[in-house]
């Protein structure tokens, strides 16, 4: 426990890991398709938050800045200062892609679950 920031960041990461396990348990053991679906969305949201947490960094000041320039830079030094204080934009871009593709899959799954319910009048598997 070197400093409070490290401790709190470790707590966040470990709770995300625990959340992964809990949501997977829901996917495996709940008999209702709707609850499996909800667990699956929680699983993907957890992994997305985890990916964004990997892009986090520490800076000299209190907080790192977002990966957005707030004004048009006047000289190259401003760019270097920006690159020295902003968080990693790549995980955010990848997570944006992952969210969209997840949304596509979930829309299709929701349609399938509705069909299943219409045919069998229940969403319970097993």
């Amino acid at each position, binding site marked *: 426990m070197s400093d409070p920031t490290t401790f709190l960041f470790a707590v966040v*990461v470990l709770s995300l890991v625990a959340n*992964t*396990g809990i949501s997977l348990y829901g996917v*495996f053991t709940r008999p209702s398709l709707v609850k499996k679906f909800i667990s699956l969305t929680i699983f993907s949201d957890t992994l997305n938050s985890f990916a964004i947490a990997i892009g986090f960094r520490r*800076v000299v000041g209190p907080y790192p800045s977002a*990966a957005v320039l707030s004004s048009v830079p006047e000289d190259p030094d401003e760019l270097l200062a920006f690159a020295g204080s902003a968080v990693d934009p790549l995980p955010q871009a990848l997570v944006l*892609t992952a969210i*969209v593709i997840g949304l596509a899959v979930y829309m299709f799954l929701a*349609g399938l679950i509705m*069909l299943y319910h219409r045919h069998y009048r229940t969403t319970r598997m097993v």
Partner: protein
Amino acid sequence: MRLREVVVAVSVALMVLLLAYVVSAGGLGPLAPRELRELARSYLANAYNPWNVTQSSLSLEAVTAIVWDYRGIDTFFETSVLFASIVGVSLIFRGYRERPGIGGRGLSEIVKTSTRVLLPLILVAGVSIALHGHLTPGGGFQGGSFIAVLLVLATVVFSLDFLVERGLASGRLLALRSAGLLGVLATSVALLAVGLALGIDAYIFQNMVREGSELSMPQWLLDRPTGGTLLFFNVFEALAVAAGLALAFLVLSLREEEVGEAMAAGEWHE
């Protein structure tokens, strides 16, 4: 059955423990480092870099620059996956048509009035997020989701007839969705088409001046940077996502009378 649940619980707990060990042992690289990875530094330094235009997309927001410029083809196929999923949803509910006048009077007058006040505000916020995707956090997908929320809210509060009467039935939404995707496609090959017409070398998904190509999208709109193709990509993506999500919601919220028709619709070969 009990044994199965115990086995699942123990293996999930084991997975969590091992994953926690891997993370704490630094298996995913240092968490919250002081120095960024070289790739991230290069993206941050080049997203808006007028002194090194051949590697820059001249967008103030690094995430949009990555999504639509550096990894543009990836995002194009991602939006195609969304399109394919909407086609799939329409396919498993084939034969479905909105029938106006089934009833469904919506929610109470209080909710309707407050929603009437809210709808234009949501529209303006969504359009602003989409148009400023290269200047502030946000972008085409986020703005489009905002506008889709507007359509979903209108469906829930005023009933489905509200959208159908305004010409936003599923067929029209699918056409808007396809128009958005075609717009993205046209933007990605725009400079290539100009280059072919003028006999100059150009690339697919070219944004600014690149090595070996002099062509460039407009860099400034009045006194604001446009990010070249990013502005067009964001607008078309917002249109596509708004229409697509609203379409999926309409198809998933079909009513019992329409469900009967959809289920009765047979296969073409029958």
